[in-house]
Structure formats: C-alpha cells, structure tokens
C-alpha cells in the first residue's frame, strides 16, 4: 500500500498539471519572466553604456573666437563644438530648459587674464540632477583640467623649471575587479528573480490545497477518510515542493540560455554562468523550496477564501526581497551568522558562485541546515493548523 502522503501528492500534481493557470504561473510565467526581463534590461543598459563611450563629447561653447587654442585642443580630443548663448545667464537658462546639456562660456577677460599670467575664468554650465549629463560633464572637466596642466607646464619650462616640480604626488588607481566580479553588481538581482520564480511555481498549488479545497467543499469529504490530517497536508506540501523544484530548474535553465545572448563581454564582464554553476545554483537554492512551500501553505491556511489567500500569499513573494535589499545596501560579506538566514544565505551563496569564488562547505551546510530546520518548523505549524476544527470554516 502506498503511503497516503504520496497518494495525496500524486493526486495534487496530476490535478494541477491539468490546470492552465497553475501551469502558466509555474512553468511559463515564473521561469521565463525573470530571465527575459533580465536579458532585455542588460541589453538596453549595455547598448547605452557602449554608445556613450563611442559618441564624441558635444559641447556648446560661447566666445569661441576668444580662445582659439583651447577650442583646437578640445576638438583634437574628440569634442564636437557647437555654438552657445553669449552670456552666462542665457547659457544657464538654456541648460535649465534642457535645450543644451552642457555649455562652456568663455568670458571676454579670459584672453586678457591669460596674457597677464592670472587664472583665466571659464564657466562650465550643466544640471547635476540630470544623471545622463554627469558623465559628459566629467569628461569636459577632465579635458579642461588637462588643457590647464598643459599651459602650466609650458609656463614653467619658459622659466627653466621642470613641470614635475608641481607634481609632488602621483596617484594611480588600481582596479582589482575581474570581469566576473564587476558583473555581480548587475547580476545580484538575479537571486531575487530565481527565488521569486521558485515561489511562484508553488503559489497556486499551496492556495488550492488549503483555501481552494475548503471553498470547493471537497475538504469535508476528504476529512472523512481514515488518513491523519498531518498526512493530507504533508502530501499537499510535498506536491507544492515538486512544482517549485520544477519551476526553479526551469528558471535556472532559462537564465543559462538567456545570458548567452547578452553581450556582457562588451562591458568587460563575464556571466560565468555555465552548466556547472547552474547546477550549483540549483543545489544551494533547493533547501529553500520546502521552506517556501510550508510558508505559503501556513499563510493560506489562515485565510477564509481563495481570494483572501491569493492576496496574502502574494505578499510572501516580497519576503525574500528584504534580506537581499539589505545585503546590497550594506554590501554584506558572507559569514556563518548571515548563512543562518534563509533567502539571504541563498543570495550570498549564489553571488559567490556568480563571482567565480569557491564556496565553503561549512557555509553551504549552515545555509541548507537553517533553511531546512525553519521549513520543518513551518510544516509542523501547517499540520497543527490543519488539525483545528475551525479549518472547516
């Protein structure tokens, strides 16, 4: 004789495989939504980043005749010079109105001050609240500074002093990020999409097995069978786990495939998302499955109708975001204590995998153990709730 838990699980799986809504959310919406959204976003971001580097800097300049050498220097360094309003006030209002992004105003006294060997004024006008312009402004600023240094060097040489005198320190920045570690910043949200799709896979089953069964009136008849209520709810949670696992596997597969289409290399990133990493991601996420299934079942057990259950269980989908949000805000490093927090520990482990780091066996064990223990406690709670008389409503 088959265990009642398996009989219930088999029936729930068979029934839900025939339900279009469950199938859609578990096998199509959840697994494909994340990867497609992600690939699309990445492609757009990359297009923009790459095109920004290639396009010449556009700079509106007024009083071009006053500083021909400066203009020539800018043009030699890839700047397209355009005319700008003559006065500073006009330039300001043009930038504020968004007619031009960046304006350089060269005042009349520029030439005079330069000749006297005094600091010659230049006005660079831009709007720092416009994030698109910040990069251009920095480029323009850098070019102007370089021109200034060039002039300074000439003046010193004229006076017989080596230009190196005014360079007491020489700072060089060394970026140790590898292509894979740079991409982690962007790929970080992938963890959430994976956990989201996993929960989505079991969502309808968890609701259907509790609130749905009660609303259809099939629960009362089911409870007249010689089966412990614990076995009934156990079977339902097991079926939910099966759907969630299916959803998880499909999501990871979809990511593996879709990331091949994203030209990460153009930004000096590598996705590092091969078959082995995909399997490892699957492995570290699996202990989260029973936890999610039991959590959704417990929440659905408290509700009185299918609709109410849907509202509350949908909120569960937000739970895994919180630790991930905190983690990215404080850029947390993995340690034993954080590994005991489900969803956060999965996030940290997956991030490590994406970065190409090797995982410590201890961390994996703590993450899996903590998730499974909490999942077990929630299953016990679900069984208790199912034993209540009020279950029948």
């Amino acid at each position, binding site marked *: 004789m088959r265990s009642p838990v398996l009989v219930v699980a088999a*029936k729930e799986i068979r029934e839900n495989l025939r339900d279009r809504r469950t199938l859609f959310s578990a096998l199509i919406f959840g697994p494909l939504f994340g990867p497609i959204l992600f690939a699309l976003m990445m492609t757009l971001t990359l297009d923009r980043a790459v095109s920004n580097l290639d396009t010449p800097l556009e700079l509106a300049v007024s009083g071009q005749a006053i500083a021909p050498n400066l203009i020539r220097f800018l043009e030699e360094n890839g700047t397209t010079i355009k005319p700008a309003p003559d006065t500073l006030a006009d330039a300001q209002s043009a930038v504020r109105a968004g007619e031009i992004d960046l304006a350089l105003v060269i005042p009349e006294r520029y030439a005079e001050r330069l000749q006297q060997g005094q600091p010659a004024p230049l006005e660079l006008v831009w709007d720092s609240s416009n994030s698109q312009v910040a990069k251009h402004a920095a480029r323009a600023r850098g070019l102007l500074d370089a021109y200034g240094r060039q002039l300074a060097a000439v003046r010193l040489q004229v006076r017989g002093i080596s230009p190196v005198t005014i360079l007491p320190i020489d700072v060089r920045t060394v970026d140790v990020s590898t292509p894979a570690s740079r991409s982690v910043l962007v790929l970080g949200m992938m963890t959430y999409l994976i956990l989201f799709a996993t929960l989505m896979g079991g969502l309808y089953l968890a609701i259907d097995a509790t609130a749905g069964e009660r609303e*259809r*009136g*099939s629960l*009362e*008849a*089911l*409870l*007249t069978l*010689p089966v412990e209520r614990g076995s009934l709810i156990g079977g339902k949670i097991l079926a939910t786990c099966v759907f969630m696992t299916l959803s998880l596997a499909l999501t990871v597969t979809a990511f593996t495939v879709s990331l091949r289409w994203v030209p990460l290399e153009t930004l000096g990133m590598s996705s590092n998302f091969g078959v082995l990493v995909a399997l490892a991601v699957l492995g570290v996420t699996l202990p989260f499955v029973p936890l999610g299934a039991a959590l959704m079942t417990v929440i659905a057990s408290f509700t009185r109708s299918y609709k109410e259950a849907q509202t509350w269980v949908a909120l569960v989908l937000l739970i895994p975001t919180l630790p991930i949000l905190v983690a990215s805000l404080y850029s947390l490093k993995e340690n034993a204590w954080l590994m005991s927090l489900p969803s956060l520990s999965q996030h940290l482990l997956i991030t490590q995998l994406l970065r190409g780091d090797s995982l410590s066996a201890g961390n994996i064990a703590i993450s899996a153990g903590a998730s499974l223990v909490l999942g077990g406690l929630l299953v016990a709670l679900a069984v208790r709730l199912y034993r209540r008389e009020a279950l029948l409503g």
Partner: protein
Amino acid sequence: MIEVRQLAKRFGQVAALRDISFAARDGRVTGLLGPNGAGKSTCLRILYTAIQADSGSATIDGHDCTLEPLAVRRCLGVLPHATGLYPNLTARENVRYYGELHGLAGEPLERGIEALVARLDLADIADRPAHGLSQGQRIKVALARALVHNPRNVILDEPTNGLDVMAIRTLRDLIRGLRDEGCCVLLSSHVMQEIGALCDDLVIIGKGRVVLQGSPDEVRTATGCDNLEEAFVQLSQTEQVA
C-alpha cells in the same frame, strides 16, 4: 451500528446540539429529520469525526468517534452536504483517489470502481472531468466515492438535494440495496415524503433535541396524524412553543 448518547455541542454562544440520543441499527435505514437549523448536520459531522462533541458519546461499530477517529472513518462511508469533487479529475479518478486513501490499490480497487460505475449507472460519464457534470451526476459520483471501500455504515447528509425524479429513484434503489446487504444507513433530510418512503426508523429533532423517534407508523400514531408531513409540522410547532 451507530449509537449516539446525550450528545451536546456549542459553537460560541449558539447551542447547536443540547441532548441527542438515538441508535441506527444494521440492516435498517434511519432518517434524521428536522427543520433547517435543527442540528442534523452538526450531529452527522460529529459522527464522521469532522468535529468533536462537547459532551456525550457517539460510537460506530463500537469505535468511539472522539477517541478512535481513524477506526471510525475506516468503517464509514460519507456523503457530506457539499459533494466537492475535484473539477480537473475525471469521475473515475475522483473515486479512485478515495479508494487509494482507504488503502486500496491495484486490481481489487479497479474491480470495486467498475462495480460502482455499473451500479450507479455512471458508465457514460466515468471518464469525463468532474467540472462538466450536472448536479445529479455529481452526487452520484460523490456517492460512488463514499462507497468505494464497501463501508458497513453509510452517512448521507441531505442526499436528494437538487436531484431530479429519476436520480432520486436511482438513489432510493441504491439505499435499499445497501440496507438489504446489511448496512447501517443514516440519512438526514427536511423533506418528509422522501423519509416516509425510504426509512425504517425516524429520529425527529428540533432545536438540538430529539423530539420523537420510532417507525413511520409509530410517529403517525404518536402525533395522531395520518400524514407524516402533518406530523412533522405539528412536532416542529410544539417544539417552537415549548
């Protein structure tokens, strides 16, 4: 054999059952009769162990409903008020699921299902999904589901609700058949004619108490009414005055 002694049950402030005692014997059809809200369903739900009584006892074939719910459920087939089939499973799969949860499997289970399909005239709809069935067909499937493990005791909560004349006739034949096989059948109803035509014993309850019990003839004699419906109306009114 179903025995109920001094059963009482409250839901918050409402006393659903105050004092119910009766026995339903093997090889007889016992009718639990009373107006809406009299406590029929509460009483049946205690018997099929969905809820527990506050005081008093109920036993089925000697098994206590509170202390040995699993043993009770094993020797009991139930048609609850809401039939509740699984809409995405076929009629046959609905019945098979219950059989499996009763611990049946393989050839004996399939033979049992086949026999019920024939007996309840379900051959045409057996392999159709339950969501497309009519109310009468649903009740027949729910009945097959309740009988899949050949229970010695059968509880039916308002089985004829929503059935047409033909379906009621099939149901009556089935209930008589169960009785003749020696089953103990307990059914509830608020429809007089049905009960008179079918039941060997009557238990009339009102406001959570047994008002009168006996054979249909005894009930007619006790109330002085020829017609059971008259007797029922009279009893309900007495209870309301009292």
